[in-house]
């Protein structure tokens, strides 16, 4: 029987167009056997949540390198709660100051990976969460 694949939605919000991060992470997660759905640039919180629903994403990964993380990410979390799909794993990666990372994690982001994080760690983190869900 076909095994369950972890589906990860990778998004870039707002005008942030740095794509080296998502390119590298997408490749690493694919190599770790996951199915990665990339949204493209200039996503609004609404678009991200719509995509998460349509794609049955297990994980939502947001890459933030322009500094506007506190602007967009809380809105994504709020929309996820509104749609009652806040059981998905939400991870954020990029250039995030510590106090913002803490604030985001309090608001509902499961983990913030800042610069210097290894792609292997991110894949392991997702898989461990997956196994804990009993899948």
């Amino acid at each position: 029987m076909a095994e369950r694949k972890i589906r990860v939605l990778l998004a870039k919000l707002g005008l942030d167009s740095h794509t080296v991060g998502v390119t590298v992470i997408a490749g690493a997660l694919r190599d770790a056997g996951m199915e990665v759905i990339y949204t493209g640039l200039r996503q609004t919180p609404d678009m991200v949540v719509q995509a998460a629903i349509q794609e049955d994403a297990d994980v939502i990964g947001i890459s933030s390198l322009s500094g506007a993380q506190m602007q967009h990410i809380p809105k994504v979390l709020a929309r996820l709660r509104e749609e009652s799909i806040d059981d998905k794993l939400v991870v954020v990666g990029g250039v995030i100051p510590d106090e913002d990372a803490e604030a985001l994690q309090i608001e509902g982001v499961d983990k913030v990976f800042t610069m210097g994080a290894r792609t292997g760690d991110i894949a392991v983190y997702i898989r461990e969460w997956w196994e804990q869900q009993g899948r």
Partner: protein
Amino acid sequence: MLEEGEDGALTGLRTLLPDAGRAHLLGITGPPGAGKSTLVDRVVSELRRRNKTVGVIAIDPSSPFSGGAILGDRVRMQTHATDTGVFIRSMATRGQLGGLARTSFEATTVLDAMGYDVVLIETVGVGQDEVDVVELAHTTTVVSIPGMGDDIQAIKAGILEVGDCFVVNKADLPGAERVAMQLAAMLHLRESSGENWETPILKVEAEKARGIDQLVDIYEAHRAHLASSGGLVRKAVRRNERVFHELLRERTAAQALHAVEGGGEPVLAALRAGEIDPYTAVDRVLGEEHD
């Protein structure tokens, strides 16, 4: 849920089946670089203009090494990202055991039952699986571009058999007419499918949305043709039989492995270690091994 083949999903699917059957299933295939994603995007726009709701199933290849995939077709369809009349689902081929035809059939059934007027299935069409997928559609479009030259042979013979409509995209580039003529020559040679449908060859420029309204007209015409000729029923029969066989294969294989020690792992291990050949391995699983 559907893709994983859980029992709950199958039960769920069965309850949906009565509601399914209304949607027009469009298959779109062609080699990489043919501009399929742009074409799909423009077709969706035109369908929306005609007030149709649209589901899109975009299929991309899984990595043969890791089993994972990067699915990027949504990126091209940004204009439809906030349109509630459009539902986009990305799927991966998942290799031989993935049951691509079955899973994409199931996904289309769900979208059909949800009430979408049209469901578009887009694949790359270089593997047999993808050829099979588009066979499940009512209307299959094969996309090519000028400059393919001998690559026209790359359009698998299988697809040529099932294509209901051929599109030459990027028709503003030199060589478009030549490709159209090559296609016409090949269509001439193929056996009549008995469907009594004159297969059109259309030149379009998807980027500039030129020719798209004619393409959608062709889809509507083909749908009407199938309805009146009994083609819809014939295709549904073929589709059901295809899914039946694939599902049977999957489930019996799973059952057979489940029934033996360790879910078949010891046999697989012996096979990998070169101790037994594949034929012996199957005999062993089925309990038909003769010493």
